[in-house]
């Protein structure tokens, strides 16, 4: 049981890092960023390629995170920016971008999975009956560190304040002279950095492949809706709840339907609250 809960925690941390990137972008720009999965994939491949070329892991990881940031910003500059006034068009653009990013990975590296090696691959911690593989401990650490950094950025800096203001009332922020476009880019930059962190945090436990982030992205969207579109704090809470729920369901009901438990949760929430747990009017990036 405790091992299942710990697994749920690992899963929750992964969901949190991905979901916070999604919710931030949604909060600021109202875009359901399906292409985030593609950002994660390219970041993972960048890390793998740098490692394969002989770079030490830390350097390769930084390359991966940087790649995630660059790709994410490019999606905003080249595509999303142009549909900001047409919210109905954004799901379509998001999905088009996902196709492009995933298949760029497929084109560049083929469909076969590749292994991402880390220095902590074979490290293992044991606490009573619970085993903590090094890669998963690293995942939790990376998640906690990056989310703490984001929290500081949002609550303590002028940029973060402006971003929260834009998420609450884009027009009012614009009237006060806050440069809105820069906030869009910044949101995508942060989401991309988090996507890069997610990639290096969990690729080592599995494989780098063009479709590695599909399941995670679906679960992260459940989290975003659970936590309220645009709410960072809600996303973190929702991620932990969903991680534990999926882990419990997978351990005690059926592992094959792991992501369906998240869906069930989503349906229950949407039946009761058709526009998510928090309505978009009160959405906040905080």
């Amino acid at each position, binding site marked *: 049981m405790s091992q299942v809960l710990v697994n749920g925690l690992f899963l929750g941390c992964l969901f949190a890092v991905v979901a916070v990137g999604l919710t931030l972008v949604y909060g600021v720009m109202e875009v359901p960023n399906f292409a985030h999965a593609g950002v994660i994939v390219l970041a993972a491949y960048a890390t793998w390629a740098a490692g394969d070329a002989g770079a030490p892991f830390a350097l390769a990881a930084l390359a991966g995170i940087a790649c995630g940031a660059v790709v994410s910003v490019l999606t905003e500059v080249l595509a999303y920016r142009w549909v900001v006034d047409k919210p109905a068009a954004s799901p379509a653009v998001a999905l088009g971008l996902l196709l492009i990013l995933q298949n760029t990975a497929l084109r560049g590296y083929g*469909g076969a999975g590749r292994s991402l090696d880390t220095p902590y691959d074979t490290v293992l911690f044991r606490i009573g009956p619970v085993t903590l593989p090094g890669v998963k401990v690293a995942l939790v650490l990376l998640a906690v560190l990056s989310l703490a950094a984001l929290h500081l950025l949002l609550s303590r800096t002028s940029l973060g304040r402006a971003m929260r203001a834009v998420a609450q009332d884009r027009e009012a922020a614009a009237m006060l002279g806050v440069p809105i476009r820069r906030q869009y880019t910044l949101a995508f930059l942060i989401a991309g950095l988090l996507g890069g962190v997610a990639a290096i945090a969990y690729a080592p436990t599995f494989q780098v492949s063009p479709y590695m982030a599909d399941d995670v992205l679906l679960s992260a969207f459940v989290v975003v809706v659970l936590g309220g579109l645009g709410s960072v704090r809600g996303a973190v809470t929702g991620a932990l709840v969903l991680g534990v729920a999926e882990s419990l369901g997978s351990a005690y009901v059926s592992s094959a339907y792991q992501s369906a438990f998240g869906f069930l949760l989503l349906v229950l929430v949407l039946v009761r609250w058709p526009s998510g747990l928090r309505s978009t009017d009160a959405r906040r990036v905080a």
Partner: protein
Amino acid sequence: MRSRTAAALLAAGSIALSTTACGPGSGPGGDDTKVKVGAILSMSGVYSTLGPAEKNAMTMGVEELNRTGFTVAGRKHTLEIGYADDKSDPATTGVVALRDMTQSQKLPVIAYGLGSATYVPQLRRKPVPMINILDSSYPSVLAQDPHLYLTRGGSDTYVPGCLSYTKQKLGTKSIAVITAKGEPYGEGLTQLVQKSAQAEGVKVVATSDYPLGSTDYGNAINTAVAAKPDAVYLSSVTGVILPVLKQLRQSGWTGPVLHSSGVNPDQARAILGNQFNTLMKDNYDCAGTLPTTSAHPATAAFAKAYQERWHEYPQDLTMWAYDYPFIVAAAMTEAGSTTDPVKIDRALGAISIPKGTVSGWLPNPGDLLFTDHGARTTSEVTTWCPATQTIASAMTFDHRDGAIVDQVFAKDACG
């Protein structure tokens, strides 16, 4: 309203245009002496560890066959293989390729790797003999349609070797099984492991599974390891089980790992990464004999030639793929036809082991290659040798009437 008409015509026109652009192929070709047959292989996708190696081997087989050619109804012929990629998805891409090969190109024989069941409805509409060079799933693919042939023994001929070997050599008394759910080969293996564990008196202390395509096997691995087995068996093919092996080792399991995936050193390195030698320690693979470990001189010579030409480790399936052209040639000679699928189908059941083949088939009663549409080779257990970073044969055996026979142990597998 006229724009609507125009749109309809435009759409209809573009269907017509696009379909003629890639319309039916030119058929068997003008050169009478050249015979074209088909091969549907997994060149990309999850099973892309299989297709390219199969194609390499077939290329070698065709070249070797065509050096002398083969005679049908008194005329010399050469062979050509038309390849198609099923993208590891026979039901979607493979079936289209099959329709194209049998209906448009009218090819008389098709070789393939995966997806027997999905081809059956199409075979009902347009029967043609299909030779499987890979799929040893249990229950056998041969039960699905009378036009299917299998060039190797089924899983039931080699899985019992795993249990027999580990019990005798490692003292394994209990085992946990982790299965890729919904993957037919893996599910068949799990059934067979349970059967032969019972026969050997080995206890199956845990069975767990994970959905194919999932990324976190934590729960399945925990269930297996928590039962404290002497060994863990992983059910499925190379590309699927190696990521599980990695997480299994990462979770702290240091005991023996058994499987029937036919993993070779190149794949281990590619999929497991730099740590592959550590991760592969204490690893046992029970499957058909490998070209590299075979005692058969023709097979060993093929293994060497393959390695020299393609600079990669020959998997077991390469020998069956290499032999495909020879089987086709023998059947066409026997049938006296290069075009009639019905005659060739009948002939396949009547040919003996063709000259020039390298698989080292075990002779069947009546000296036929196929008995009940199946051919058989010896099975073996291989083990990983960390010192040389490669695999070596630990035991060869055959399986007859539900019992392991002709067991031969290697003295010191890793030398």
